[in-house]
């Protein structure tokens, strides 16, 4: 599913965010990406989101070499992904329904398809009673569940999450992580960047550890 081969990312005057990172993640795997702040976790996720391209090496996802994608191909590629961020990145002026429905809407689904799919996902995540609420009216855990609903609504083959529990208390963090486990159980590949060792131990999955841009443990 994901293969990075001798990937390095250099910013500015020779500052390496990633150095010679080679890793393979199989389809359907649930993998944690961990390491201290500045280790390169977010950089690797940005490369996988194709927000950036590597300075050296290659990043391949589902057989696509991301550096070789045109702008249009990159857009098509991103439609196969779901993403979740620490700060949720919900649109405050839109309701829960509109935030989650934005994805199928942007991708050209009909109104009926949008509503059906959005409602299914919200119901699965237990948010159907909050459909008409605005993000700022929700708790942190609810906001993150909305963000996960948005990531799932397009039925992606890969979900990338960057510190998805960073703003949540331990109980909510565990709840969110259990959600990712359920999503993974349905066959979706999940890559979660976190530095919460307790959570990783609780979920008990493969862990990739970065330190100063180098992969130190796979």
């Amino acid at each position, binding site marked *: 599913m994901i293969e990075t081969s001798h990937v390095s990312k250099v910013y500015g005057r020779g500052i390496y965010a990633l150095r010679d990172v080679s890793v393979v993640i199989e389809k359907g795997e649930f993998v944690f990406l961990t390491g201290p702040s500045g280790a390169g976790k977010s950089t690797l996720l940005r490369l996988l*989101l194709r*927000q950036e391209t590597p300075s050296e090496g290659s990043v391949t996802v589902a057989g696509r070499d991301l550096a070789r994608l045109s*702008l*249009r191909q*990159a*857009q*098509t*590629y*991103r*439609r196969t*992904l779901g*993403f979740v961020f620490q700060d949720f*990145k919900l*649109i405050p*002026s839109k309701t829960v329904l509109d935030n989650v429905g*934005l*994805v199928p*809407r*942007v*991708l*050209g689904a009909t109104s009926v398809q949008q509503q059906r799919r959005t409602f299914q996902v919200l119901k699965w995540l237990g948010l159907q009673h909050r459909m008409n609420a605005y993000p700022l009216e929700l708790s942190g855990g609810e906001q993150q569940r909305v963000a996960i609903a948005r990531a799932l609504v*397009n039925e992606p083959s890969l979900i990338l999450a960057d510190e998805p529990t960073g703003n949540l208390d331990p109980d909510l963090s565990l709840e969110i992580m259990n959600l990712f486990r359920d999503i993974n159980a349905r066959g979706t590949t999940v890559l979660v960047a976190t530095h919460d060792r307790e959570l990783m131990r609780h979920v008990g999955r493969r862990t990739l550890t970065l330190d100063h841009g180098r992969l130190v443990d796979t």
Partner: protein
Amino acid sequence: MAMHWFTYCLDEAVRSLWRQRGSVAFSVLTIAAALLVLGGFLLVSVNLDRAVSKWSAAAEFSVYLRDDISQDQRVSLNTLLAGHPVVASREYVSKADAAQRFKRDFPDLAAGLGDLPQNPLPASIEVRLHPRRADAAAVEAFARELQQAPGVADVRFDRRWLERLAGIATGLRWAGWMLGGVLIAAAVLTVATVVRLALHARRDEVDIMQLMGAPISLLRGPLVFEGLLQGGLGALVALAVLYPVSLIVRQQFAAALGPALDLALVGFLPPGVSVLLVLGGMAVGCAGGFVAARHVR
């Protein structure tokens, strides 16, 4: 897909315009001011053109005949007029007809004319010109030719002032385009700034949509639509102001000039020009929106 794109862009643009209605109102007024200036100049020049056209159609020579004109000279003059392409029609006005017209037009002086031992007014031929064939050079040449014809005392040609008027109308139109052009450039920049503000307000949304893989047309489209709607609104505001202003000015003219001015000639912009003004406003707004949309990559 095109319909989805259209409804999405329109929906997002309307929401965004409503969200920042304060700055949008400023932008709409800027466009309205630019188009008001342009529309005002167009209104004046269109009405001058109408007047020139109408008066041109009514333009005529007056060929005054010598009292001692011979029958042969009269025949050859008639032949000259009948065969010339700029002549649409002609009418002979005898000395007696001229006296009668004088008495009708100037009743206070009519008694004085009757006291004279003989009628001093000359006979004339009133020549109506063909509006399409009578260009300035051809008419000038024909007037000179008539002036030299035997039996002709004088030729009075009332067209030169019409040409000057037409020149003023053209000048006004150009002045309008130039001044309007400068204001329109300012309007484009204002719209671009307002739409960029909207873009900043929606930056997170645009970033998220980019991560979702939204096509660039879906990211830029609402911004271009925002500009387009602002431009259209601005043009409608300009027309809404221009129309009552034109009515007020017309009334002022009526009071000042009275019967000397044919008010039937004075009117609002033709529907085609009004539609063009609205489309122009939309194009101006669209240009502003596009300038702002280029920042989304």
